[in-house]
């Protein structure tokens, strides 16, 4: 009788069936046994639990039927972990099988044993494994090589103790290429969890062996070997060339992973080749066809290839510069392929091919997929900015698109036209009329904001600019912040250009922004404009209508050091995500950053975007906007714990954060407010007239949007000084933080802090050279900043800094430098130069370093001043979890030049009245309320600042 092929899949494992299977497994008939094991495996594969059958299945292991044996092994691998004691039963059979005359069985046994992750079994594995690593049959050896990696995963120590790693290294010299490949693969995997173990000490001899094996092993083995080769640094350009020559044939492999790994090796090693070498040019030519071929593969392969090509194009645009057409988008490409292709098209766009590219982009802009269409329209704008000669054509293409009246196309087009205006001012204003026709159809904030910016910027050429802007003003409060801010600025611009007709409009928008809005950004900006306009219209004009810096060419280039590292990781996940491997791959902690070798010609070939923008007009270093997180971090530094305990700093308090309002920025606002409302109140001198006013002017001039970041920070740092309490010196010095990571500093790492010592502000830095070469010629410079901080002398690094050397430097500072308001207030932009390059970073100094030693106000003066300040100017903040009494707090604060003028006790509350003086002679008064037994402090700061003419 013939049985129909049983459909194992549909079998349902209930207790009855388990019972039935048990009976079948213990049957005398071989055939029945095998069928039963098959049913068990089938249940297992779909995730059903058949572990109850463990002993019965293991009993079937002693068989000469290979299929049955394999099936039992499959089962064992799955369930041994849950039944470790039972698994021991299988050990004898394994050990016996490792001695079997059939190499297939020997290999199978050692392979399966390695997969059983049970400690007791691994003990028994060592001896058979040792034998198999030296087996006469290469099939067994190559299987055993992988088994070492498995064992290492289970018990790394055991592998090292048993000397398996050395045996594995010996296998690199094996006569069989498949064994070599597997040994390399196993070592690479082990090395990944041991980044510093130097397992793969590559030398010319091993490299030669690997290159020989490369030609003969399987496609997968070739990938392992190529990836391993990529870690090697050739001694000179001749070795580099000879390796390249032997790797090049891999570019013709059918397996795309082999191709990409070969590309990685070549991209890396060609750095060492002199550019005038003939071979260099040949190699460049050879790289293009395989990359193009990858794009005709399946979409998933294309995606990975495109992500990598994106890197290659940034590093060596010459390779693919003639291949623009292969990146043209087909309408049925998956969206992830389309977007990547578009990105590369823009990177390859040049004067030579721009006409083609534009025609394509225009075509894409009529496709169905909205996301893709939007990106295509943006791409046209990017082309205009990148290829100056094409700008005119791009603008006319965009105009054509606007004529289609497709809503989202029009909106995107307007956003990019704004950027084009920023790049080429006073060139394409003729199109404004067309743009204005579409005003009503804009419903996205970004497009509305862009349009408003255009109207404001070119108000003098638009006859009905006031009407247009007025129409937006009607729904002012329903607009998003972006639009509101833009509208405010645009109307102020309009007013400055046509003051006579628009007075009413500007008053309307200023009152909308300052009185009816809850948004602090908007209010702040409103007040600033209001004050500027009312005090000095000429200055206002200079500030608001100042010439803007041109926007840079390409904004989304990958930072050069990161790009170098990613080129070393072509073909990996890192290259797909464009992030360094250390940033995201689990278990690869401490991965060494790979660098391209012999990057002597680096400086010329890679112009860093930083220097590019610096050359673009302003001499200021690029504005690095520090994240608010840093400020909150400072806030967390509140360390008012008693000196005896060294516990962690108390957690942040929400009350504190909510109340954390910028002492100076916020205060100034209120003062400005005050000025407007009651002009008779004369402020003590012209507060900030010299220092702050100028600062305010500069910011909006730089960019109309720069005000979006809330001004805060002063107070946070003010409270930082509380931290000083525990220190013997008195003044609080925050710990050193890394300002310039080695990644960004081409190997130079700078960490530092600020301190006030003996009345002198010091910038204390630790410089570490993590690069391979000696660094010399250090110099430092600050950008203009809020308090005029400047170096009082040159940077004292007299001896050259050799690799891995660390040096501590203290730089004395003074406060007589040029002043410009920073955001946040205590931000300091620093440029450090050495023989390699100029590096920019920004750091924040604690406000406390600016409190001078003579900040103790006389009691009478204090009292009079305190009374002078109206109550409604007072702000209150709470500091929670401070377990100090008032006296201790007072003495500690004194260490940071915060002086207690008076103390009063009311209802069990201690009130401390304190004064401090900043280097620019601004006095700050504060009241600190401490309730015994309550860890919450209340600080009141009346917002009245008094300038005292010190000089």
């Amino acid at each position, binding site marked *: 009788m*013939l049985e129909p*092929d049983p*459909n*194992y899949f549909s079998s349902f494992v209930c207790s009855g069936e388990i019972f039935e299977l048990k009976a079948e497994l213990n049957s005398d008939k071989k*055939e029945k046994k*095998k069928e039963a094991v098959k049913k068990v*495996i089938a249940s297992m*594969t*779909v*995730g059903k639990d058949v572990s109850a059958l463990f002993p019965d299945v293991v009993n079937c292991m002693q068989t000469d039927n290979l*299929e049955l044996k*394999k*099936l039992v092994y*499959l089962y064992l691998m799955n369930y041994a972990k849950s039944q470790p004691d039972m698994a021991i039963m299988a050990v004898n059979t394994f050990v016996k099988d490792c001695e079997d005359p*059939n190499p*297939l069985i020997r290999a199978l046994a050692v*392979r399966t044993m390695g997969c059983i992750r049970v400690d007791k079994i691994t003990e028994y594995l060592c001896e058979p494994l040792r034998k198999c690593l030296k087996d006469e*049959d290469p*099939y067994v050896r190559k*299987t055993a090589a*992988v*088994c070492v990696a*498995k064992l290492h*995963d289970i018990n790394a120590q055991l592998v090292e103790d048993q000397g398996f790693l050395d045996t594995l290294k010996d296998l690199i010299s094996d006569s069989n290429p*498949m064994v070599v490949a597997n040994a390399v*693969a196993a070592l690479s995997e082990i090395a990944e969890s041991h980044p510093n173990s130097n397992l793969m000490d590559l030398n010319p001899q091993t490299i030669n062996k690997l290159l020989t094996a490369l030609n*003969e092993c*399987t*496609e*997968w083995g070739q*990938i392992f070997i190529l990836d391993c080769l990529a870690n090697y640094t050739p001694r000179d350009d001749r070795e580099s060339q000879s390796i390249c020559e032997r790797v090049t*044939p891999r570019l*013709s492999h*059918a397996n*795309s*992973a082999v191709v990409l790994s070969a590309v990685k090796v070549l991209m890396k090693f060609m750095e060492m080749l002199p550019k005038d070498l003939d071979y260099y040019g040949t190699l460049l030519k050879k790289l293009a*066809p*395989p990359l*193009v*071929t990858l794009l*005709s593969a399946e979409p998933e*392969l294309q995606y*990975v*290839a495109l992500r990598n090509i994106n890197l290659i194009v940034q590093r060596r645009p010459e390779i693919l510069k003639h*291949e623009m*057409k292969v990146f*043209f988008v*087909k309408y049925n490409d998956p969206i*992830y392929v389309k977007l990547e292709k578009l990105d590369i098209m823009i990177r390859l766009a040049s004067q030579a091919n721009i006409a*083609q590219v534009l025609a394509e982009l225009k075509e894409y802009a*009529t*496709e*169905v997929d909205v996301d893709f269409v939007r990106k295509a329209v943006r791409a046209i704008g990017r082309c205009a900015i990148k290829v100056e000669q094409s700008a005119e054509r791009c603008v006319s293409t965009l105009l054509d698109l606007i004529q289609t009246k*497709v809503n989202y196309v029009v909106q995107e087009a307007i956003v990019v036209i704004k950027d084009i205006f920023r790049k080429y001012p006073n060139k394409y204003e003729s199109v404004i009329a067309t743009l204005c026709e579409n005003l009503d159809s804009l419903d996205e904030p970004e497009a509305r904001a862009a349009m408003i910016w255009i109207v404001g910027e070119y108000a003098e050429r638009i006859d009905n600019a006031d009407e247009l802007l007025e129409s937006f003003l009607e729904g002012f409060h329903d607009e998003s912040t972006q639009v509101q801010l833009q509208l405010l600025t645009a109307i102020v611009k309009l007013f400055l250009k046509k003051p006579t007709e628009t007075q009413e409009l500007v008053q309307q928008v200023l009152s909308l922004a300052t009185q009816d809005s809850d948004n602090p950004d908007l209010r702040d900006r409103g007040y600033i404009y209001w004050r500027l306009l009312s005090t000095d219209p000429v200055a206002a004009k200079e500030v608001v209508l100042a010439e803007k810096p041109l926007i840079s060419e390409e904004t989304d280039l990958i930072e050069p050091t990161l790009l170098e590292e990613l080129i070393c990781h072509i073909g990996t*996940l*890192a290259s797909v995500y464009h992030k360094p491997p250390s940033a*995201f*791959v*689990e*278990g690869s902690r401490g991965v060494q950053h790979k660098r391209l070798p012999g990057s002597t010609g680096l400086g010329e070939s890679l112009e860093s975007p930083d220097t590019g923008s610096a050359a673009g007009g302003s001499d200021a270093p690029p504005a690095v906007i520090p994240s608010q997180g840093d400020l909150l971090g400072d806030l967390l530094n509140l360390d008012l714990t008693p000196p005896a305990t060294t516990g962690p700093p108390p957690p942040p308090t929400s009350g504190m954060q909510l109340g954390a309002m910028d002492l100076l920025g916020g205060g100034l606002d209120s003062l400005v407010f005050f000025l407007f409302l009651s002009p008779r109140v004369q402020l003590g001198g012209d507060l900030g007239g010299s220092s702050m006013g100028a600062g305010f002017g500069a910011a909006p001039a730089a960019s109309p949007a720069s005000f979006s970041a809330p001004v805060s920070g002063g107070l946070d740092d003010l409270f930082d000084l509380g931290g000083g309490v525990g220190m013997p010196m008195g003044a609080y010095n925050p710990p050193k933080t890394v300002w310039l990571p080695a990644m960004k500093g081409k190997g130079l790492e700078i960490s530092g802090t600020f301190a006030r010592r003996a009345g002198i502000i010091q910038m204390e830095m630790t410089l570490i050279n993590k690069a391979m070469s000696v660094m010399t010629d250090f110099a430092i410079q600050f950008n203009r900043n809020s308090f005029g901080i400047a170096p009082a002398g040159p940077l004292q690094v007299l001896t050259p800094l050799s690799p891995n050397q660390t040096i501590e430097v203290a730089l004395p500072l003074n406060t007589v430098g040029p002043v410009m308001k920073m955001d946040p207030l205590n931000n300091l932009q620093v440029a450090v130069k050495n023989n390699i390059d100029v590096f920019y970073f920004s750091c924040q100094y604690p406000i406390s370093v600016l409190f001078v030693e003579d900040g103790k106000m006389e009691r009478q003066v204090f009292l009079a001043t305190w009374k002078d300040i109206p109550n409604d100017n007072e702000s209150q903040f709470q500091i929670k979890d401070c377990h100090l009494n008032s006296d201790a707090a007072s003495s500690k604060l004194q260490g940071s030049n915060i002086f207690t003028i008076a103390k009063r006790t009311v209802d069990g509350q201690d009130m401390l009245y304190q004064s401090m003086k900043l280097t620019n002679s601004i006095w700050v008064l504060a009241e600190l309320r401490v309730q015994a037994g309550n860890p919450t402090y209340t600080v009141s700061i009346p917002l009245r600042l008094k300038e005292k003419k010190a000089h």
Partner: protein
Amino acid sequence: MIHSLFLINASGDIFLEKHWKSVVSRSVCDYFFEAQERATEPENVPPVIPTPHHYLISVLRHRIYFVAVIQSEVPPLFVIEFLHRVVDTFQDYFGVCTEAAIKDNVVVVYELLEEMLDNGFPLATESNILKELIKPPTILRTMVNTITGSTNVGEQLPTGQLSVVPWRRTGVKYTNNEAYFDVVEEIDAIIDKSGSTITAEIQGVIDACVKLTGMPDLTLSFMNPRLLDDVSFHPCVRFKRWEAERILSFIPPDGNFRLLSYHVSSQNLVAIPVYVKHNITFREGSSQGRFDLTLGPKQTMGKAVESVLVSSQLPRGVLNANLNPSQGAYTFDPVTKLLTWDVGKINPQKLPNLKGTMNLQAGASKPDENPTINIQFKIQQMAISGLKVNRLDMYGEKYKPFKGIKYMTKAGKFQVRT
């Protein structure tokens, strides 16, 4: 390396899982399902998806997602290539790669997967080695096994595993010795509105079916090898000989295999075998649009253009289409808005034409997008690049094999913009 594999069907059920290292919970696939939900089309699921502890790399084949789970830094292409190999192997073993076939052969599938990867490292992925290890299921073999109690797992170490020619087993015997080579070229092109070529390139392959006894050593030479400047070879091809003499010299695998694939780039002049005259227009204010499309042959060296199929995604606003084909039949799916026209063969004397009207929703405005026309066709006995095999010689064996070479040109992604 590769940790686990999940197979997921179109309705989102995980119907098979395989773990090569420790077990990874299937809940990891939830991240995949999220990505699947976000994608508008099944093809648009991104191939690499990060999760907090793993990476999911997937391919979609035959409406099944093959999702590999990896934990450490592994080349994604390595994983994708391996998944392709899994799909090919299933297809090879079961004829089709469908959910039903996989479920019916679940034990063989499991044995195969176990044989293909060891601890995440590829072990045996060559089809002929696998077939020696695990015999493909056939009705005959199932019957024989049931009667004799024999097994479908090979008892011997596959001979190819370690030899210098791992792709070929020893002791091959045939009564009819034959070697067939198919030169198949696919032409990818984008043609613009006015009929001029924006980009055109050719993806060519030479697929072989070699059934020769013993260890034959073949050489294949071309009339015009200079066309082949961007090639990928089967590992059996001796690269040095190709570099030096532009001759393909190889010991072939047994059975079907892809000898060579090549790419003729857009920089060379690529002949376009068909042209399309089209007039698809909508007028402002009218709820009707005109559709008129004519196909004709061009640069086909007198060969007939066959199996022509035209498809086009009409604008979303189109409700239905009333068209009149001069030959063949057309369908319009009012839901997906996909128009397909099965033309058949192009007769140069009487060019096929499809003409009529499209109806828009009443009062709807003129559609924004221009439909793209996708064309499929086949031309027998011609390689559009002009590639021609000069001769095929066999060394190493005494008998005289039967040799055959066929040429064919097909449309790949052949798109005409309107």
